[in-house]
C-alpha cells in the first residue's frame, strides 16, 4: 500500500513536468505502535501513522525540493502544485556544481517482515516480565510496525524498501542507575526471544545486588561487551566520510594518514547486504553490498555521498548526505564468551557506554561514561558492581595498541533510534578486550 502510494505520487509529479524538466520523488513512511514502559507498567502507549514525500524538480543543474507530509486523497494534487511552485524558485537558483543525479532506470524492491499487533505484544511482554509473581522494575520502549522507504525518478528508477519489524529496548533496574539493559528485535515476532532476554537479564541482575565498589581514576584492563563497542563505533562510524577527510575534520584522520593505526585485528565495513538499511540512498543512489573501510588495521575506504562524488571527482557509493555508516560491521575475533572473564583476569567488565563525545577530536580522543552494569572482576570472577566512571581515551588507541582481543561472536544491533521516525540503521560488532582503558573521574 505504501509502495503504491509512492508510485501514484511520483506519477503525479512526473505528469506535471514541462519539457526540459526532470523530477525525483523520495518517500519515507511508517505505521508504528509504541509503548513506553516504567516500573513494569505502561507509561504512554499509542500509534503513529506518518508518511512524507520529497519532490525535487530539476532543470539541468538547477534544482529545488519540497517535503510534504501525506494526508490522503488530495496528495497527488499537492505534489503537482509543489512542482509548479518549485518551478517559480528555479530562476533564483544558480547551477549547482555538486549536483549528481542517479539516472539509471533501476528497479529494486525488497519487502520483508511481519509485525505483530502492538497492544497484544505489549501485554504479552508485561506478562512475561511479571511471570513468577513479582512485577519487575522494567523500563523501556516497545516499537513495532511497518517502515517504508522509496525512490522514483523521471528517468524510470523505482526503488522500494519495506520492513515489518518489532523491537523491545529495555532495562531491568536493580536500584538507582544499576540496571541490566537488553535490546531484542526482529522481522518476525518471536516472544520466546523476549522471554530469553528477560531471563538472562534477571540472572545478571543478581550480581548488581552486591555492595558497590568505587575505583580510583587510572588505567584498567577492560572487557567491553558488544553494546559498549557499538557505542564507540556509533561515534566512529560518522568519521569515514570523504568530506570529513578532505576538510580535515574527521576524527580518524591520524589513522587515515598513518600516524596512528588500528590493530591488525580490526576490519570493518559498511555492509548493507547484512544489515537492515535500504539498498539505496535517500537521493536514489544504489548501495553496494559492502564498502570496505578498515582492512587489518589500515583505513582503506571512505563513504562517498552523491555531492562529495561530484565535488571530489570520485564514484558515489550510496552514502547519505552525512556520509555516516548505516550498517557498520566489525569483524569478530577469536575470544569465546566462556573465555572472556578468565582472559580479562582482573579489571572491568563494561556492559554499556554512554554519552560519548570528543575531548580532542583531532586526536580522536573520546570521553564518555560507563552505564548500567559495569563490574569489577578479579582473577576471572565478578566481584562487585562499580560506580559509574568517566573515561577519556583515544578511540584509535583502544582499537589499536590497546586492543588485546575481539570476541568470537558479533551481535546484530538494529537501531532503536526514533528521532522523527524509526531508523533503519544497524551495527554488527563483537565485544573487545582492551588494555589501559583510561578513567578520569
Amino acid at each position, binding site marked *: 500500500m505504501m509502495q503504491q502510494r509512492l508510485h501514484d505520487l511520483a506519477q503525479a509529479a512526473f505528469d506535471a513536468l514541462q519539457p526540459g524538466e526532470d523530477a525525483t520523488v523520495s518517500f519515507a513512511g511508517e505505521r508504528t505502535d509504541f509503548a513506553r514502559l516504567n516500573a513494569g507498567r505502561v*507509561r504512554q502507549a*499509542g500509534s503513529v501513522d506518518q508518511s512524507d514525500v520529497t519532490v525535487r524538480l530539476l532543470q539541468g543543474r538547477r534544482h529545488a525540493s519540497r517535503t510534504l507530509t501525506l494526508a*490522503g486523497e488530495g496528495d497527488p494534487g499537492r505534489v503537482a502544485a509543489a512542482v509548479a511552485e518549485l518551478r517559480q524558485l528555479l530562476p533564483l537558483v544558480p547551477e549547482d556544481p555538486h549536483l549528481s543525479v542517479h539516472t539509471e532506470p533501476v528497479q529494486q524492491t525488497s519487502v520483508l517482515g511481519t509485525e505483530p499487533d502492538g497492544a497484544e505484544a505489549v501485554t504479552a511482554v508485561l506478562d512475561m516480565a511479571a511471570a513468577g509473581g513479582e512485577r519487575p522494575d522494567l523500563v523501556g520502549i516497545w*516499537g513495532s510496525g511497518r517502515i517504508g522507504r522509496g525512490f522514483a525518478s523521471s528517468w524510470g528508477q523505482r526503488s522500494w524498501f519495506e520492513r515489518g519489524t518489532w523491537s523491545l529496548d529495555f532495562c531491568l533496574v536493580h536500584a538507582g542507575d544499576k540496571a541490566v539493559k537488553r535490546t531484542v528485535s526482529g522481522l518476525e515476532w518471536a516472544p520466546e526471544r523476549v522471554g530469553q532476554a528477560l531471563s538472562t537479564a534477571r540472572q545478571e541482575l543478581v550480581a548488581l545486588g552486591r555492595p558497590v565498589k568505587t575505583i580510583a581514576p587510572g588505567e584498567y584492563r577492560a572487557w567491553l561487551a558488544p553494546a559498549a563497542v557499538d557505542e564507540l563505533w556509533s561515534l566512529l562510524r560518522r568519521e569515514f566520510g570523504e568530506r570529513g577527510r578532505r576538510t580535515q575534520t574527521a576524527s580518524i584522520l591520524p589513522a587515515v594518514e598513518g600516524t596512528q593505526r588500528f590493530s591488525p585485528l580490526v576490519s570493518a565495513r559498511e555492509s548493507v547486504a547484512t544489515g537492515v538499511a535500504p539498498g539505496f540512498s535517500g537521493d536514489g543512489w544504489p548501495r553496494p553490498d559492502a564498502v570496505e573501510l578498515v582492512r587489518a588495521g589500515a583505513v582503506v575506504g571512505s563513504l562517498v555521498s552523491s555531492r562529495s562524488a561530484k565535488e571530489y571527482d570520485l564514484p558515489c557509493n550510496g552514502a547519505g548526505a552525512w556520509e555516516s555508516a548505516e550498517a557498520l560491521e566489525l569483524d569478530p575475533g577469536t575470544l569465546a564468551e566462556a573465555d572472556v572473564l578468565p582472559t580479562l583476569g582482573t579489571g572491568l567488565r563494561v556492559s554499556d557506554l554512554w*554519552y560519548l563525545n570528543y575531548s580532542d577530536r583531532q586526536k580522536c580522543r573520546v570521553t564518555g561514561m560507563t552505564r548500567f552494569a559495569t563490574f569489577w572482576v578479579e582473577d576471572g570472577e565478578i566481584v562487585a558492581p562499580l560506580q559509574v566512571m568517566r573515561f577519556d581515551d583515544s578511540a584509535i588507541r583502544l582499537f589499536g595498541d590497546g586492543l588485546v582481543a575481539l570476541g568470537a561472536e558479533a551481535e546484530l544491533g538494529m537501531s532503536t533510534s526514533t528521532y522523527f521516525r524509526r531508523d533503519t540503521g544497524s551495527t554488527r560488532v563483537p565485544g573487545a578486550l582492551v588494555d589501559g582503558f583510561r578513567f578520569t573521574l
Partner: protein
Amino acid sequence: MTDAVVRRFRDALPADLDFCSLRLVSTRSESLSIRKGVLQPLHDSEDLGAMVTVRQGRGLGYAATADLSAAGLAAAIARARAWAERTAAHAVFDHERIVMPEPTGSWQSPVVKPWDDEPLADKLARVRAAAASLPDDPRLVEWEVALDRTRVETRLVTSGGGDVTQVFDMVSPDATVVVHADGRTQTRSLGLRGHSRQGGLEVADDVGFTGMPARLLDSALSLLSAPDCPSGRMDLLLAPDQMMLQIHESIGHPLELDRILGDERNYAGTSFVTLDMFGSYRYGSELLDVTFDPGVPGELAGYAWDDDGTPAERQMLIRAGILERGLGGVVSQARAGVPGVACTRAASWNRPPIDRMANLNVEPGDSTLDELVSRVERGVLMRTNTSWSIDDSRNKFQFGCEWGQLIEDGELKEVVRNPNYRGISATFWRNLSGVGDRSTFEVWGTPYCGKGEPNQLARVGHASPMCLFSDVDVFGGAA
C-alpha cells in the same frame, strides 16, 4: 483550515469518552545556506498532522495521524481509545486522578520583520553577503553559513471545550568555519545553532549575521597559533554561550520530574535529584537564582500554554541556591507530589508530550565582566560549546569549548585552544563564586535537545550572564 478539522473532530467524538484532545501541529521550514561558495540545494517543507489523546478510565492512549478527514480523525480517536482501554490495567498510574486543563485563548511570537514579507531573492542576498565577508585564505578549509526559518502553528482542542492557538516564528542564523595549518585544525561556530530565536528576520540583524563568518574566522585563526589550554585546578569563567550548555545539562535535565520518576531510565537517564530534595536542597551557592521563564522576548522556547494546555508562568526553580521546584507538567506533578511548571511539550504532532525544560535561565547578578576577571588569580575564560558528556544521573560531566583565554592576576591574557573542564553537578554549582550583571546577560537557545522514547527533539532557550566558578578541574587537548 483548522476550523474545519476541529469541527470534524468534535463531530467524531463519541459521547462516552472521559476525555479526548486534538493537538494540531503545522510546521513550515526553509533552509538557505552556502557552503564553500556553493549555494546548497534549496529545500522547504510543509508538515501538518494531529495527535489524538484519549483518557478512558485509568488508561491513556495516543494516536497520531496526518489524515485529517472525518474518517481519518474518527479512526485516530478509535485507535487512541483502544490503547487507553487495553493498557488501563497496566497503567503506571491512575490517569483518572489527573484533571486535564481546558484552556482557551491564543498567543503568537513577537515578530518585527516577518520572514514571508521579504522576497526569497533578498533573503538569499543576506546569506550571500554573510558568505562574502569571508576573505580568501588558504587556511580556511571548510565553511558554511545558513539562515533557516521555522513556523509552527499549534491548536489544542479538548472535549471539554478547551481551544488554544499558538504561533511560533523562529529564525536561526548560523555559521561555521574550519581552519587548518601545520597539522592543526580549529573550528569556530555558534555551538548547536545557539543564535536560534523566536522572531523574524530581525534576529539575523540583531546577531550581526552579515559579519558573523568573518568574526568567527578571526577567532579560529587566533586559535591555530595558540598554545594548548593548561591543566590543573583553577577558576573558570564561562560565557553565556557555554552557560547555555552548563545550565541545560546539569540543572535542566536533573530537575525533570519524569526523569526523577524513572520514565527515562532506559534512554536519557535518571537524576541525582530526588523528590525529597525540593524545598531544602542546596543546589548551588547563594549567588544562584534559576528561573523557568517562558516570557523572555525572543528566547527560543517561549509560549503561553504547554502542550497539555497548562498556562505557562515564570517560576523560580532555584532561589539563592536552594532547590524549590522541578521541571514537570500537570501529570508529573500529580505523580510526584511536588511543585512543577507548565513544561509538557511534544516535538511535533507525531509524539506525545513529555516534561521539557523550555526557557531555563540563570538570573543576572551584580558583577561587571571586569570585576569578575579582576577576582581571578589563575583561570580560564571559555566560550562556545564543542563537546558535552554527562552521566545518566546528570552528575559527572565533562564539557569542551571551542575558545579559551587565560586569566592571570586579574587580567585577560593569551588565547588557548582545546579548553575542557570536568566536574560533578552536585558540587560544581556550589562553587559559583561570581555572577555577571545584566551587561553580561545574553539569550541563547538550541533546537537540539534530545530525550524521550519514542525519541523527541525539543527547542530550548537558555539565557545567562557570565558566571565564575572556583576550583574547577581544567585541561587541554594534550592532557
